[in-house]
């Protein structure tokens, strides 16, 4: 289908992109990889009046090591994250997750900043950002991930605010992302990420609510010495997922518990 007409402008700097967004108003959209935005525009679920293309901002397409942190530029493509030797060594969970996003064609285009800004409940990076206490850096400020994801497709970004980088901690202990889906390139029906960091487990859940969820009850149980299968029973504590075509709320809660157990076991089994 043909998207509705819009004005198009290429930004040559973050400042110019912000100016263009201010000029066009809140119905303008930033175009990065476009792999969430363009499908929505074709279905006319999104009809931005203007598109600000930031694909020329090569400064945002990089991965930097900064002490015990990794700074991932907003325009870094999934394929770059998946294959980055720095990410594989310092935060292998992120490389693993990047390799599970979409398919080759999607990973060649889709970006870190795009996924975070789009805030799809089934997005994979938001779960990692939340559970690892990542910071989302914009042209205006730094936002902790726990304050960033507000609701379904809703973030704390202002209309002329642009993500420039996402800052993750280094974590290379036991880890696993279990993404449950019908076909390889699908979004997660439910996903569970497990990462051991400084001796404690962090557990994040994908697509069990309007925003990513950190399974703190599981983390606490593991901290107190529970076995993974016992701790995982708490993965659905407090969840109220919406049902959809693929899974009922009860099934999603069941998956959260089962996949949490698998994620912890597989993470430990590997290292």
């Amino acid at each position: 289908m043909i998207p509705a007409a819009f004005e198009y402008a290429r930004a040559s700097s973050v400042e110019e992109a912000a100016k263009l967004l201010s000029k066009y108003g809140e119905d303008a959209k930033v175009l990065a990889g476009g792999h969430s935005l363009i499908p929505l525009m074709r279905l006319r679920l999104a009809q931005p009046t203007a598109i600000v293309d930031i694909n020329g901002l090569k400064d945002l397409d990089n991965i930097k090591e900064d002490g015990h942190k990794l700074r991932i530029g907003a325009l870094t493509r999934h394929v770059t994250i998946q294959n980055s030797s720095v990410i594989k060594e310092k935060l292998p969970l992120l490389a693993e997750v990047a390799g599970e996003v979409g398919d080759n064609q999607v990973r060649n285009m889709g970006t870190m900043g795009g996924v975070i800004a789009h805030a799809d409940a089934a997005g994979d990076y938001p779960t990692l950002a939340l559970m690892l206490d990542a910071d989302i850096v914009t042209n205006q400020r730094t936002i902790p991930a726990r304050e960033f994801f507000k609701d379904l497709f809703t973030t704390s970004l202002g209309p002329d605010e642009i993500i420039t980088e996402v800052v993750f901690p280094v974590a290379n202990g036991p880890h696993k992302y279990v993404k449950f889906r019908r076909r390889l390139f699908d979004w997660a029906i439910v996903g569970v990420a497990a990462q051991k960091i400084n001796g404690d487990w962090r557990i994040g859940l994908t697509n069990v609510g309007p925003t990513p969820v950190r399974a703190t009850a599981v983390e606490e149980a593991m901290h107190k010495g529970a076995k993974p299968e016992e701790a995982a029973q708490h993965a659905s504590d407090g969840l109220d997922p919406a049902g959809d075509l693929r899974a009922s709320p009860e099934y999603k809660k069941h998956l959260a518990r089962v996949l949490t157990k698998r994620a912890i076991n597989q993470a430990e089994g590997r290292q």
Partner: protein
Amino acid sequence: MKLKVATTVNGRRHEHEVEPRLLLVHHLRDNLGLTGTHIGCDTSQCGACTILVDGKAVKSCTMFAVQAEGKNLQTIEGMAKDGELHPIQQAFWDEHGLQCGYCTPGFIMATAYLLSQNPNPTEDEIRRGLEGNLCRCTGYVNIIKAVQTASKTMSGATGKKATVAAGGN
């Protein structure tokens, strides 16, 4: 509002004025007459419209033509040279890696990208590498055989394992 878009497609330079909302696949098919790139699903899932943009496999239905400004594109029409099929095309022919053929251009371009990154993929790597392409005839077994055959002939043709294309991350 129309914008100029200049691209190199299969080695030929083209310049057009296009509406920003024009999808790249429509530009290829309607403005350049390159109808070998197919539109299958219109929802970014099936991969029938896969082409190479600066050597990387991309679904041309999920990119605006204006984003292709200055880019080097390769479509299925650019694969055969001097009347001779590309080894990937020949392998799809020899292994009967197609039934109705609708998805084939997309599969061949996705295979070209896969083999540029990984010249000797295992069966599992082929399946993963082509996960973004759907065959509604479900002819996957022969498609995988075709990729294996292409991999063999291409590495044989260069007399050694082909090296991974530079800049492929």
